[in-house]
């Protein structure tokens, strides 16, 4: 199993990590085989679990650490990083890998 280098991302949306971003993250994360986790401070969330993600309760400007372990860890983190950078806006969302 390979681990990818963790990546820092910033929550850009005005309303923080609310339900729409959480469901997009979970959907994207579930399309990969790797285990993917998101860390903020002392809280850790399984990126594939929308309840975990919503439980992070992060607002605008928060910096999160993305971690992935598995065969497609690198690709998974690429996709999630892009999702965060797009601000979760529909017109700028990247295509999610199959």
């Amino acid at each position: 199993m390979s681990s990818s280098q963790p990546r820092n991302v910033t929550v850009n949306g005005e309303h923080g990590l609310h339900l729409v971003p959480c469901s997009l993250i979970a959907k994207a994360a579930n399309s990969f085989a790797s285990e993917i986790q998101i860390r903020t401070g002392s809280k850790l969330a399984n990126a594939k679990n929308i309840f975990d993600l919503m439980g992070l309760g992060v607002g605008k400007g928060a910096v999160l650490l993305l971690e992935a372990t598995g065969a497609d860890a690198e690709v998974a983190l690429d996709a999630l990083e892009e999702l965060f950078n797009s601000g979760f806006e529909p017109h700028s969302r990247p295509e999610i890998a199959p």
Partner: protein
Amino acid sequence: MKLTDFVVPEAILVDLQARKKPDAIKAMVSSLQAAGAIPESDVEAIFAAIMKREELGSTGIGNGVAVPHTKHAGVSRLVATVAISKTGVDFASLDGNDVHILFLLVSPPDRPGDHLRGLETISRHLREQSFCRVLKQTNSSQEVWELLNEVDQE
């Protein structure tokens, strides 16, 4: 933040009869109005705002749970109600299953932090299968309120 900080006990619905999303949301919004948590004059607008939010993506987030919500100037603080459906509501959920537990939230537009903390508090408890199981078995709004108080202490 505790569930009992924002759930309105008089608005809890323990035997939701609605089987479809709009009817369920309408019942919960009406319940909040009847409990005095939202003005009667804002009921239609709040219902419309919640349905519009549903168009962005269903708040049926899986596990038989839905968290319909909106921001509206008709409230000065975050308010919410809980509805339990024994038969299940078709909510076009992310996992394709009917929902049996619904938390509906209305928050003031100028306090996005309250909205986020409310969703965080609810998710933290709803991810526990034991909480969902007991919630679905409640038979009175008093039982629901006591359960919320109990998990707030954890």
